[in-house]
């Protein structure tokens, strides 16, 4: 298939030429990018904060398409699962939406008593020039809860800019709470969104090795925890870019060091725990970590054997939001004895893609900000058994008669941690081994 000329620099094949890959640029008009927008970036990061009011200031679309769309679970309040909007009408666009926003905030804060309110700008707000700062300041003063504007006008950059806007919003909360009594062996978990309860699992691991978790940022998140997050000794950051900015801000403002980890796959999960234990230089913690990893692997590995045998040599393609997750997935597939033949992301950085090129097999396609037609051609060329992606990728796989594993916000299966590795293997297995593919026409040579 022909690739649009402007897109060629965003596709690389491992080993076939020296590594170059252009990324972090605006999506090409008419290319049908799988990306969303700045608003989306902010919304996904802040979404799981369960005791905050999330009010989308704009016409109805942005709010209604993000109503209860993530499997981000809460152990308590579930305010985040509701979709609030100012539902701007033509008259608001003409005369300005500030008054409506102010009144909507008062109404909703009175109704739900949230611990804070996030007010998201949408495209139109950036154009009609509503002063969100002023409105939020006024409402904050009268309601005595933090009311924070999120500068997420859809057109002002790509999804990454939305991550930054979300981090800026959270930064306003951090440093405002009481940090007494926090253990010196304490961390914040950044970049896990508690899909299918994953952060509970991760917290459990950390607690077992003697680490106190101060704030979940943002899975099962709470405003009060964010407010005292600066009391933690270390920020443990998962996910490519979504909360890295916040970690940097906290490093600058509170001298809290940070490390990047991933909880997907056995290797990365174990490494994350070891890295944290080593950071605290506590022999007891290290011993506990070794014990934990040993116990978990003893439980997991025998169960995994069955899947490894069945899936050995099968081919996989990966297209996810952030490329850091892609690393873990490459390793997880290796553990299962499967070959990764395509890997890409919506928002990866050059460094990440370079490293992906280093760890993948020759001929592997590496792609930034791709689109349905490119994906289709890659899948047809590589004849894969399973495609890992999100909802927008699913029908592409299915139309081509390819198995699918949802590794995005909507999933209901916990795929992180040691237990998650087993779930992941089961997910892959149950799609790849299904008899339904006998009835579809795959582009295989023998058909």
């Amino acid at each position: 298939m022909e690739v649009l000329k402007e897109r060629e620099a965003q596709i690389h094949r491992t080993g076939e030429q020296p590594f170059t890959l252009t990324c972090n640029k605006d999506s090409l008009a008419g290319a049908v990018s799988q990306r969303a927008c700045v608003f989306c970036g902010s919304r996904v990061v802040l979404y799981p904060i369960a005791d905050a009011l999330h009010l989308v200031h704009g016409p109805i679309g942005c709010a209604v398409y993000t109503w209860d769309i993530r499997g981000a679970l809460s152990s308590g309040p579930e305010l985040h699962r509701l979709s609030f909007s100012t539902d701007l009408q033509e008259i608001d666009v003409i005369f300005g939406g500030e008054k409506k926003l102010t009144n909507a905030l008062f109404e909703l804060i009175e109704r739900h008593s949230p611990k804070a309110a996030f007010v998201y700008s949408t495209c139109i707000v950036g154009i009609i020039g509503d002063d969100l700062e002023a409105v939020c300041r006024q409402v904050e003063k009268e309601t005595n809860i933090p009311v924070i504007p999120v500068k997420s006008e859809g057109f002002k950059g790509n999804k990454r800019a939305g991550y930054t806007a979300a981090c800026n919003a959270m930064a306003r909360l951090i440093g405002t709470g009481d940090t007494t009594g926090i253990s010196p062996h304490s961390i914040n978990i950044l970049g896990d969104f508690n899909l299918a309860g994953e952060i509970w699992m991760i917290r459990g691991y950390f607690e077992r090795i003697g680490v106190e978790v101060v704030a979940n940022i943002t899975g099962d998140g709470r405003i009060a925890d964010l407010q005292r997050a600066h009391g933690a000794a270390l920020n443990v950051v998962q996910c490519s870019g979504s909360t890295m900015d916040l970690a940097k801000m906290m490093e600058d403002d509170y001298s809290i060091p940070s490390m990047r980890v991933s909880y997907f796959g056995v290797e990365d999960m174990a490494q994350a725990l070891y890295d944290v234990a080593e950071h605290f230089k506590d022999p007891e913690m290290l011993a506990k970590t070794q014990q934990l990893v040993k116990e978990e692997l003893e439980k997991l590995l025998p169960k995994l054997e069955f899947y490894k045998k069945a899936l050995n040599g099968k081919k996989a393609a990966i297209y996810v939001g952030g490329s850091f997750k892609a690393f873990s997935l490459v390793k997880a597939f290796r553990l299962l004895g499967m070959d990764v033949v395509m890997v890409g992301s919506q928002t990866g950085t050059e460094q990440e893609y370079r490293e992906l090129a280093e760890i993948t097999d020759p001929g592997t396609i590496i792609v930034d900000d791709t689109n349905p037609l490119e994906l289709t051609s890659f899948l047809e060329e590589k004849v894969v058994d399973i495609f890992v992606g999100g909802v927008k990728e699913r029908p592409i796989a299915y139309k081509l008669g390819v198995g699918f594993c949802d590794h995005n916000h909507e999933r209901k299966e916990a795929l992180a941690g040691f237990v998650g590795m087993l779930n992941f293997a089961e997910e892959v297995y149950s799609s790849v081994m299904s008899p339904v593919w006998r009835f579809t026409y795959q582009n295989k040579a023998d058909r």
Partner: protein
Amino acid sequence: MSKNRPNYISTTNACKLCTPLGAAIAFKGIEGAVPYLHGSQGCATYMRRYIISHFNEPIDIASSSLSEKHAVYGGGANLKLGLINVTQKYRPQLIGIATTCLTETIGDDVKMFLNQYDKEVQGEKPIMVEVGTPSYNGTHMEGFHNAVASVVDTLAGIGEEDESGDKINILPGFVSPADIRYLKEVTEDFTLKATILPDISDTMDGQAAKTYEKIQPGGTPLVSIADMGSGIGSIEFGHTMSEQSGGAILEKKFSVKNRRISQPMGIRASDRLFDHLAALTGLPIPEKHKAERGRLVDSYVDGHKYIYGKKAIVYGEEDMVVGLTGFLAEIGVMPILCASGGKSKKLAEKIAEATGDLLPEQPQVHEGMDFYDISELAESLGPDLLVGHSKGYPLAQKLSIPLIRVGFPIHDRMGGQRILHIGYRGAQQLFDLVVNACIAKKQSDSPIGYSYM
């Protein structure tokens, strides 16, 4: 019957979608078409995700992917670049361009840009149809109907001379692929050649494919649209759209008589469709459909006691709410609240017409509702069932009552695209659904465990 209408400033859990989404779905029902949103990238991606989750089909919606500088200097250049790229990659026959709140507010003149594009770009060009769909004005249904009207206005004409007099236009509004397949069958049984606009029966409910099609096969053929002016009549489902509908344009331009009927749900509304087709063709109603009607009446009788007097809340798109309410009224279910996020100002009147003298008391009817409002009213109304799309599930769960899933979206079940709502056959399926939901509820609530009805 507008009593107790809540009047809040904010919207919580909206019971409507935004204007361009409707336009994108309408454009998907045209042969060889790619929907295109002139706006920032997020709109297209969010809508694709939303639509895919219902239809389980690929839906590619292109975007101008506007960034900050375009918002300041205008989006014309990106629109043209996007159209060139879509043309090169998809080779579409038609690009359906819908605007968004961003481009409407910055004042982009899409018509002018398209004129420039026509002059500047050489080579083969797809047909361009554009529709203004600011999301701060109306719901997805206005977007849908306006896109259809725009297609008709741009493309409809009178094709080759043809005396057969067997062509008819059906503008069904936003119905399911199963509904459209049924309409095709019915019109064929009346020996009619129907142009159904739009036709998402294949494009949004496609087959497993041998090779991946860039644009899903199917959709209303362009050649048929170009010939809509020679139809013996048009039938338009729904009463709440603007006067400038596709059917109205055909009548004005080509004197094709337009007949608006309610979405044909239930026996009486389906009778109106069949009677009208019989009148247009001069043919009797085909035996097959008479038999389906007969079986439907028979089943109404068999099942009536399980549902009589059950109180229902009906919500969703206005015309669908009208159709459903009429159907529920004739099977003995009592609609107590009819709610929509739309604001046509016609809903109450049309519901009164659809229910006629069947109900002892008219339901409350409210426009501009969200699920917070519906939920609040539901507390005091004590409904036995909800009838609408899957976004009513949280309320059904809260009230522990069945939800009859119809319309769009169905995000929590398989097969939303295959739900048949219209005609005798659709009424049969809906009837079985409603009765069985009530029986299942009684059965599961009972400690006895009856294994018979």
